C-alpha cells in the first residue's frame, strides 16, 4: 500500500516502516552516501542545482551558518550531515518530507528547535511530515497519525494515540512516563494517564500532599 494514500494534513509516524525507509528519494532526510572530499556547497549544488538566497535561507532554517558551505563533507558530524539533508529537502520544496530516524542524532535542545520548525512547515507552508522511527516516543505529544507496522506491509493507523493503549502500552521500549504511571496504577494509587511531566507533577502533588 502506498504511504501517500494515507497522508492527511498533519504529522504521521510509523514503527519500522521499512518499505519507506529503504526509499532513498530526494525528499527523504537520512544519512546518505557522499563524496567525502566534496564541499557542502558543491554537494548541495549537485543535488539541487540551486545557489541563491533560497539555499542560504534553508541553511539558516536548519540552524547551519553560511560558513559550513566551504567545509568538506568528511569533517561534518552525523547531525550536521542530517541538517544539510533537511536543508536540501527544503530547497527542493517537496510537499512531503520523510525523516528517517531523525531524532537519533539530536539532543533535547536541537529536538525542541526542530519540533518548532516542523510545526511551522506544516501550519505555514502546508507540508506533510512523515517520521519513520523504530522508537516514535519523542513525538509523543506531537504527531497526529501513527502507522504501526504489524507485519510486512501491513500497517495499523492510530489517530492521536494516548500511548496507554494496546501496542504502545505493551511495548518494552515505552516512554518512562508511561512506564511510571502504569506501575503506580498497578499498585492501586490513583493517577490519570499523563504524557506531560508537568501535568504528572501537579497530579502527584494533589495526590500525596
Amino acid at each position: 500500500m502506498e504511504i501517500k494514500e494515507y497522508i492527511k494534513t498533519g504529522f504521521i509516524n510509523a514503527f519500522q516502516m521499512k518499505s519507506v525507509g529503504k526509499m532513498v528519494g530526494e525528499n527523504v532526510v537520512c544519512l546518505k552516501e557522499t563524496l567525502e572530499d566534496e564541499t557542502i556547497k558543491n554537494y548541495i549544488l549537485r543535488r539541487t542545482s540551486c545557489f541563491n538566497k533560497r539555499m542560504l535561507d534553508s541553511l539558516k532554517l536548519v540552524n547551519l551558518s553560511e560558513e559550513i558551505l566551504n567545509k568538506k563533507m568528511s569533517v561534518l558530524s552525523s547531525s550536521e550531515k542530517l541538517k544539510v539533508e533537511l536543508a536540501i529537502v527544503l530547497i527542493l520544496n517537496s510537499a512531503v518530507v520523510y525523516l528517517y530516524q531523525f531524532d537519533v542524532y539530536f539532543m533535547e535542545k536541537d529536538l525542541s528547535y526542530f519540533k518548532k520548525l516542523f510545526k511551522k512547515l506544516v501550519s505555514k507552508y502546508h507540508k506533510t511530515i512523515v517520521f519513520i522511527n523504530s522508537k516514535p516516543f519523542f513525538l509523543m505529544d506531537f504527531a497526529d497519525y501513527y502507522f504501526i507496522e504489524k507485519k510486512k506491509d501491513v500497517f495499523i493507523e492510530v489517530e492521536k494515540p494516548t500511548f496507554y493503549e494496546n501496542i504502545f502500552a505493551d511495548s518494552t521500549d515505552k516512554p518512562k512516563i508511561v512506564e511510571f504511571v502504569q506501575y503506580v496504577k498497578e499498585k492501586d494509587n490513583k493517577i490519570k494517564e499523563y504524557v506531560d511531566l508537568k501535568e504528572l507533577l501537579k497530579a502527584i502533588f494533589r495526590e500525596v500532599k
Partner: protein
Amino acid sequence: MKKLLEVSDLYLESHNKILLNHVSLTFYKGISTFICGTSASGKTCLLKRIAGLGKCRGHIKKYGRVEVILDSQEQDGSSIVKDFLNYSHLEKKEQSVILKFLSKTLLDKKIDQLDEKNKVLVSLCQSFLRKPDLLIIDNLLHFLDQKSLQKFYDYVQKKAITLVCVSTDIESVLAFHYMVVMDKGSIAIEGKTLQVLKQEKLLKRLGIGLPFYVDLSLQLKLYGLIDQVYVKKEDLRGALWK
C-alpha cells in the same frame, strides 16, 4: 585503578573553528562512561582521533586493547555477514559469541539486506571478536531494542569490557558510572553520573535534558515531597506513597 586510555590536551582547528579545545580525559578499567553534547560539540571528532582517523595536537596513550565503533563506519554492503565476520574460520567459542547476537539465518544475508539494528549487532560482534578491554561506541545503541540492549550490556559486563558510549539518548545515561558533557569542542562538565545530572540548570543551558526519573525526582524534591533523587520506579513510588 588501571588506566585503559588517556587523552591529553587534544586540540584541533579547522576553517578557523576550534573543533577540540584542549580536551583531556582518562578512562579507567571498570568505569563506564557516557559522553553527550549537542550537535557539533566535538563528540564524534574526539572519537575519530582516538580511532586514529585524522591528526590533531595532543597525546593519546592506550594501555590495553581499544576498539572504536563509529556511526559513520562503512561496512561493505555486498558482503555476506558470515564472510564479513570470517565465521567459518572461527573457533566454536567465537562462533557462539556471534550466535548470541545474530541468528543463523542472518549470517547468510548480505549486510545491505539487514536493518539498522542487525547492522549494529554485526559491528558489535566484529569488535567482540577482537576481545577489547575498552569498547567505545558512537551513538549506535539507539538502534537496539530493549532486549538486544540488555543482551549487549550483560555480555559486556560478563567479559569485563569497559564501555564508553557517545549517545543522544539521555535515558540510557543511568547505566553508566561516569558522565562527560561536551560543548563547543570542550568538556563542559564531567563527574559521577548522578552528580552531573543534579546540575540541571547548567545541563539545560547546554541543551541536555534529564532522564525522566531524575527530572521528576528533582522537581518533586523542590516541592518538598521527597528528599532525594530516585532512578527506579519502585523507589520513587515507595517514597511518594509511603
